[in-house]
């Protein structure tokens, strides 16, 4: 079932000549996990802003084409209502902290207070989410005195705690170490398992390959490839357009050049190991 439909969408920011998004058409279905990759300034964050309704409600500019969210045109949709349906984690962790709360606990609770959640339920949810995101040790700290990585986790926890139908998440692991990154991906995967729609912009392609149902590759404001993850990431030609591909795909490419062929292009480590083992034993 379609959750968000983009039909030939082109968007230009105010005072800019070149559009940031060009002729975008794609359908995001409910309950699926979408990964978005692409070079810097390729339009990924602009696409997130559009999906979350900040374009055209907050960022004006010129928007052409149709963006349908839950069956309603984005231009007519009630942005206040949309804020209760689609959670949005931004790229920059330093601007996501409200700055008005004295503890991380209260910071995470803001969204729940805005949704009118009863106090006891807020407390339970904050404690649970803190455990899940592994920030229990930060709960009593001042959110304005956190490091970039800690802020990123708190911002992520604050939005996830709101338990919405869909999440648009823009590079949530840019300031995290590999262990923290893996933890965030596990939570995102868990959200998908709960039936949430997840749209994630990331550069950690190996992890995306492991979890995402579908992938979109953006280049200069256009979607140059989109579809099932295996299909998209198997296309080695995407590298010419600046897209990062999983190491396993690159390995497969190297093997092909030495006339060694696997059953199919492996996009995840597990698949690659399995195929290599099979090949070596035969």
């Amino acid at each position, binding site marked *: 079932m379609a959750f968000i439909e983009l039909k030939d969408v082109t968007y230009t920011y105010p005072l800019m000549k070149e559009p940031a998004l060009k002729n975008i058409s794609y359908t995001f279905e409910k309950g699926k996990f979408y990964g978005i990759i692409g070079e810097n300034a390729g339009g990924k964050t602009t696409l997130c802003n559009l999906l979350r309704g900040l374009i055209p409600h907050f960022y004006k500019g010129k928007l052409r084409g149709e963006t349908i969210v839950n069956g309603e045109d984005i231009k007519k949709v009630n*942005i206040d209502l949309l*804020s209760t349906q689609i959670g949005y984690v931004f790229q*920059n962790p330093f601007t996501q902290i*409200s*700055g008005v709360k004295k*503890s991380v606990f209260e910071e995470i609770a803001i969204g729940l207070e805005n949704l*009118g959640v009863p*106090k006891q339920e807020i407390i339970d949810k904050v404690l649970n989410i803190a455990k899940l995101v592994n920030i229990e040790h930060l*709960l009593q700290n001042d959110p304005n005195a956190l490091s970039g990585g800690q802020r990123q986790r708190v911002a992520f926890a604050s939005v996830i705690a709101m338990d919405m139908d869909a999440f648009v998440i823009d590079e949530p692991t840019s300031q995290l170490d590999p262990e923290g990154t893996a933890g965030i991906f596990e939570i995102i995967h868990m959200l998908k398992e709960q039936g949430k729609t997840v749209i994630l912009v990331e550069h950690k392609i190996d992890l995306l390959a492991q979890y995402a149902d579908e992938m979109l590759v953006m280049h200069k404001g256009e979607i140059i490839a989109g579809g099932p993850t295996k299909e998209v990431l198997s296309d080695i030609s995407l590298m010419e357009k600046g897209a990062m591909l999983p190491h396993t795909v690159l390995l497969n490419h190297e093997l092909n050049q030495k006339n060694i062929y696997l059953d199919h292009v492996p996009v995840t480590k597990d698949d690659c190991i399995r195929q290599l083992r099979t090949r070596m034993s035969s």
Partner: protein
Amino acid sequence: MDNLEFANHFLEPRRYGNIIRDLNPLNRLNIFLVLGLSVFFVSKYQYGFFMVVLLFLIAALAGRLKNYLSVYWKIMLLFGLFLFCVKAAFSPGVHMIFQLWGIHVSIESIQSGLSLISKVLSFSGVVVLFVQTTEWEDFTYALEQIGVPHTVSFVILSSFQTISDLGQSANVIMDSQKARGIETDGNLWKRAKAYIPVMGPLVINAVSGVEEKSIAMDARAFSAPVQNSFLIELPKVTVKEKAFVILIDVLFVALVVGRIALWLL
């Protein structure tokens, strides 16, 4: 304190265990405003200085004397002393004490200066004391309880936060200037030379920060079309507190009426 204990303290109304700080913020504002405004209706400057002393006592009672003094001494020095000197030197008077070039210090000009600074110091003291004894979150909660919209209360809360954010950003910029070898310490001229060029970027950053913050709050469903709940609550106002505030207000109204009557008669 473990997290569960920390979380459970939100179940109880927030109390500070202090007679001044546990007053409802709006009642505290009411009392302080009455104290600050009363000096404008009492002609004797001695009353103004009594009020200044009273504010020190209240600050001590609230356990905030040190914080109060750290801000208030600057006001005393900058406004109090400066205004007094100007008023004493240039106000007209009959009983001259000292005269040099255009400066005329008289008994009347000194009294006029004392009268002015007693009012300025009292009223500014009230403002500083309120800021020092009030958590802005408590204040905005109290405002929302009397029907002030959530958006307005957030604007108040966030404005005060922006002031402290600006200070922090200024320090960060000055530290980076220092790292580039630019002198930021020293006499007033050196400081001004270092500060003035960073004012532009500081203000632009603050403006763009407001935009980003409003988007961030939208992501937290700030404008969700539902009645918001509160994690932190304040204790219910007691009858004793209500009675005290009414008494203070009645006395103030009596003072104002009395003063107007004296003017008219």
